[in-house]
């Protein structure tokens, strides 16, 4: 029984920390503000959820479990609110997203530069 608990919580913690690190790498790698926001929303939903579930499996009593559930619910409530407020403020203050040009409006960048894969869709 002890072994099952430690293995399942270890798997959750490992997956969660992998997702957190890759969310931060996405924050560094993506080209503009709006796409970086998608990378942080990965960390805010599944990274936080998996790490807190891993801790919930290890939790010694009911109070600790309840506090972990509270942190998870608060995070899931706060994440989309902050994201929407940030995106709305950025959009209304004139920060234009970099979009892929597709179909009738062709890209102003020649596709030989590096955008071959992007303008395909």
């Amino acid at each position, binding site marked *: 029984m002890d072994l099952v608990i*430690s293995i399942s*919580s*270890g798997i959750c*913690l*490992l997956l969660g*920390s*992998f997702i*957190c*690190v890759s969310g*931060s*790498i996405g*924050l*560094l790698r993506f*080209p*503009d*503000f709006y796409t*970086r*926001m998608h990378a*942080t929303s990965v*960390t*805010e939903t599944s*990274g*936080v959820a998996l*790490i*807190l579930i*891993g*801790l919930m499996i*290890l*939790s*010694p009593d009911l*109070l*600790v479990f309840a*506090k*972990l559930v*509270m*942190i998870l619910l*608060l*995070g899931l409530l*706060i994440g989309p*609110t*902050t994201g929407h*407020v*940030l995106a709305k*403020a*950025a959009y*209304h*203050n*004139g*920060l*234009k997203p*970099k*979009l*892929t*040009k597709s179909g009738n409006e062709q*890209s*102003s*960048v020649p596709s030989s*530069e590096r*955008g071959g894969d*992007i303008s395909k869709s």
Partner: protein
Amino acid sequence: MIIAATLAIFCAMILAISRAFMGPTLYDRILAVNSLGTKTVLLIALLGFVMGRPEFLDIAIVYALINFISVIAVLRYSDSNQFKENSSENEPIGKER
């Protein structure tokens, strides 16, 4: 395994704060600081389990609330002139880097 997760969160925080220093626009910095706050909540919760003191979870809850309120408070002033972006950002993808 908890210690490994703590170290991973620490690495993620370093990556996030480097984006906060690099960030070309103001909004990138706000986003990176918000993401850093989310990871700090996780770090406090994990450290509570590492040290065997689950009372740290109270601090984690308070930190989550402070993080939320600070972002909302900064963006409360987003009508002012310093938040305006010039339109030179409007370049198609693939031009940068």
